[in-house]
């Protein structure tokens, strides 16, 4: 039996001007699914015979925000008056509103930082998996005896 649940862990991502993000190290299956759901949009396609079907395609803009919302736990950002913008434990809609509220360059810095974090974690997990499974080549078999 192997452990398939990760203890929640966060990473601190340093940004410009001394700001930082607190992000989830990894997503759970549920968080990943929610992210995928928020990254797609339904498209109605009408065939030549008039049949209407619904397809889902990736919405590239929504996918960026979905990734940010999935990982973001807290940040150091303040509003124009210097008051902290609270996002920790806030409902998804409030976090989305906060992401809409900040300056566009600040948002892009957040998205880029989380993207880099995700890539780095994927590389780390791939390396860990390789180490756990041992040899990368095919398993050796014993030659017949006798």
């Amino acid at each position, binding site marked *: 039996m192997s452990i398939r649940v990760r*203890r*929640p*862990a*966060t990473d601190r991502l340093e940004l410009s001007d001394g700001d930082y993000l607190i992000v*989830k190290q990894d997503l*759970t299956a549920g968080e990943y699914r929610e992210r995928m759901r928020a990254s797609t949009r339904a498209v109605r396609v009408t065939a030549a015979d008039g049949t209407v079907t619904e397809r889902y395609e990736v919405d590239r803009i929504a996918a960026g925000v979905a990734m940010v919302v999935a990982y973001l*736990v807290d940040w150091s950002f303040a509003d124009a008056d210097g008051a*902290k913008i*609270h996002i*920790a*434990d*806030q*409902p998804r809609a409030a976090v989305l509103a906060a992401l809409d509220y900040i300056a566009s360059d600040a948002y892009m810095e957040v998205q880029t930082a989380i993207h880099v974090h995700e890539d780095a974690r994927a590389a780390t997990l791939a390396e860990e998996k390789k180490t756990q499974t041992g040899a990368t080549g095919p398993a050796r078999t014993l030659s017949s005896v006798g």
Partner: protein
Amino acid sequence: MLDEPRVLVRGKADARGLVKYAYHTAAEVTDFVIMLDPATRRLTLGGTVRSQTAWLASRPLVFVVMTKGGALRWPIDALDVTGGQVRAQLGALLERE
């Protein structure tokens, strides 16, 4: 009746209390009340569980109440969820965010 438990925090109609395991939401609680027993200085939480997740079995848990200026957090020392109702013993208020 000075020694009777008194209401310390009462969630308004739209108030949302969260039982958290780290950053995971273990349960959403509505109609919640936090009572203080002056005699024992114990804090007791009661409320209705609107939703719960598997994280509710994890420890340690924290009860979080959102406020305009941030959040109030109490460590949960003991928790019982029965029939959609939560009852918990809370520790001292953690540092206000």
